[in-house]
């Protein structure tokens, strides 16, 4: 009996050793991720190599990835990296230049200006773009028509339009606002700050939050919330994610969406505003972020991992994403006539991208983001003044930046 069990185990382990381990991919769980399985299946058919995808929410992605990378674990062969986290993750990623050179069809010139630079460090490319994220405004065409409103082009106009669009008797607020202690609150403030000419860090890398522009940016938010009473009740409980539901339930005249999430507005099963919305460009300087794929240094399947990345980011893949409403970093997809006919809001995406900025290239953005969100939350819940909140955030970040 013992001999039989031993024999079975030996045969089992030999067969496991003979078949290659599946490639493991760690990505965020979002609308864009639902487009990956088709391309992954094609890769599996072409190469005979299995792929296991682990999709987890944005909040937990960075934690899981960081713990895996710091422990030098070969758990993942491909990881999804966002612009704002690249600085923290880059030391654990494999440079892709060697692989890129062997792939003439990759057409690096096709990428929009500045995108590849976001994943470049010391002249080496560490990740290839998957999709582009830039916040777009959405507004209720019926409310705007009835009240004779136009999509605002400045933050001042935005507050005025939000106030006019507010109709408390019918439970409609002018604009959604992500007031929860979350990265989205940071984004909301940073965009207003940038629009006023502010910068998060000076030339020496010191944080510069508690400036006049920074305080004005918080004052603008307070004006929208309290003076004009134009945001939905409970804004302190919501990020952009929960705000989506408020807009989709028809309780707000303006909201903010990532482009890849716009198609759900036309789904009558979850949206009460089907056919009653249009897209607008965010005033000032919008926040943009690019999601890309990289290979951890500790992967044992780097060559195949690169093949998979190429499969997920080549021109055909990019066109496939674009046709499904996901903005791309490749010019060929964003300027494709069929794509533009199918997704007219790509025009607004392109305009926003041209004006946008990304998170500063620092190696500890997650920490800075948490500090800012927490202190901004105290300011917008009127626990403390804007100046005190920003000064507190600045002091905390000063201790962080070395």
């Amino acid at each position, binding site marked *: 009996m013992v001999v039989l069990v031993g024999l079975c185990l030996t045969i089992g382990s030999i067969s496991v050793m003979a078949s290659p381990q599946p490639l493991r991919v760690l990505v965020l769980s979002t609308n864009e991720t639902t487009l990956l399985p088709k391309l992954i299946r094609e890769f599996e058919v072409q190469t005979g190599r299995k792929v296991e995808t682990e999709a987890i929410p944005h909040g937990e992605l960075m934690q899981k990835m960081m713990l895996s990378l710091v422990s030098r674990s070969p758990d993942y062969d491909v990881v999804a990296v966002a612009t704002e986290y690249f600085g923290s993750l880059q*030391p654990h990623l494999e440079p892709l230049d060697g692989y890129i050179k062997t792939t003439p069809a990759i057409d690096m010139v096709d990428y929009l200006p500045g995108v590849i630079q976001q994943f470049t460090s010391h002249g080496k490319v560490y990740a290839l773009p998957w999709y582009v994220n830039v916040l777009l405004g959405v507004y209720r065409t019926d409310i705007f028509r009835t009240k004779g409103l136009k999509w605002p082009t400045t933050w001042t106009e935005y507050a005025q339009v939000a106030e006019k669009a507010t109709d408390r008797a019918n439970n409609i607020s002018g604009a959604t606002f992500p007031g929860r*202690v979350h990265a989205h609150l940071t984004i909301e403030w940073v965009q207003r700050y940038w629009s006023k000419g502010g910068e998060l860090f000076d030339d020496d890398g010191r944080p510069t939050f508690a400036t006049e522009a920074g305080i004005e940016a918080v004052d603008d938010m307070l004006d929208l919330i309290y003076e004009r009473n134009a945001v939905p009740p409970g804004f302190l409980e919501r990020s952009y994610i929960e705000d989506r539901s408020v807009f989709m339930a028809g309780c707000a005249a303006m909201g903010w969406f990532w482009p890849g999430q716009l198609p759900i507005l036309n789904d009558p099963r979850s949206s009460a505003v089907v056919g009653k919305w249009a897209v607008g460009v965010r005033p000032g300087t919008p926040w943009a972020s690019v999601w890309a794929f990289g290979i951890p240094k500790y992967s044992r399947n780097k060559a195949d991992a690169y093949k998979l990345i190429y499969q997920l980011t080549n021109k055909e893949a990019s066109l496939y994403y674009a046709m499904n409403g996901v903005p791309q970093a490749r010019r060929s997809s964003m300027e494709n006539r069929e794509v533009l006919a199918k997704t007219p809001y790509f025009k607004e995406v392109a305009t926003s991208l041209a004006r946008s900025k990304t998170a500063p290239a620092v190696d*500890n953005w997650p920490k800075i983001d948490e500090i800012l969100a927490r202190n901004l939350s105290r300011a917008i*819940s009127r626990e403390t003044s804007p100046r005190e909140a920003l000064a507190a955030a600045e002091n905390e970040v000063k201790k962080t930046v070395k």
Partner: protein
Amino acid sequence: MRRTQLTTRRSLFPYLLLGPSILLVLVVFCYPLVYSLSLSLQSWNLLELGPRVFIGLKNYSALITEPRFLNSLSTTLLFLMGTVSVQFVIGFALALLLNKSVAGRNFLRTLICLPMTLAAVVVGLLWMWLLDPNLGMVNYYLRRLGFEARSFLGDPSLALASVILIDAWRNVPFTFLALLAGIQRIPPEMYEACRIDGASFWTMLTRVTIPLLRPIVVVVLLLKIMDAMKTFDLIFVLTQGGPGICTETLSMLAYKVGLVNFDVGAGAAIATSLVIVTLLVTVVYGRQSLRSDGVEF
């Protein structure tokens, strides 16, 4: 000689049987605790590529002067007192009520126990939607009754109280069941004797029920104190410690510092502090409560 060998074998036998369990406890309980303790004595940030550095008690001394830590400590104690007292009062009242033969008693007992079967994350999401100021049922009825919609989880003055009540709602069933079991163990003859003597409900409650329930009450409160001290998932789903830091308990702070800011050393120091505070509260309460019963704690 043979007898000595037999005796040695017999004396080793219990240890051999206990060995695997002790090993398991050491691996799954002691190792993480010791590892966490050792991490708390080091400076280690995952975002920095530098090595871990032993810094002694510096992480702890930094905590003592850190206003955010002190705020979390007071929030944790407030949360603890709030949730445990609400759970106890409601659980005890329900146990007294449903110990009597009332109509639909079994159905009501089952109904009360339902929240206990739900995971904290589910409870959090459920209440988040119920309390939503725009789409939630609670605010819908408040508006229908002529009140203004309130942001229960977003208003700094209401957030902690709301979290306390939601946590209590989830935990009342345990208190109810434990106390009901205790009440049912009290011999009915004692109540009969009281009634013959003309004792009122209040007298029976204070002179019979509560004194005889005391050991169970002590155990229930001890368990609930430890449970409340480490509450994390519910707060994470409901408020993530916000608005600002209004609902940031020690476990939430440890998570944010250790796993959001990746400051693992400081995060471990907060987690260890939480263990110390929990031990302190439990030991002080346990000693006080059990000493009068003549029990060693």
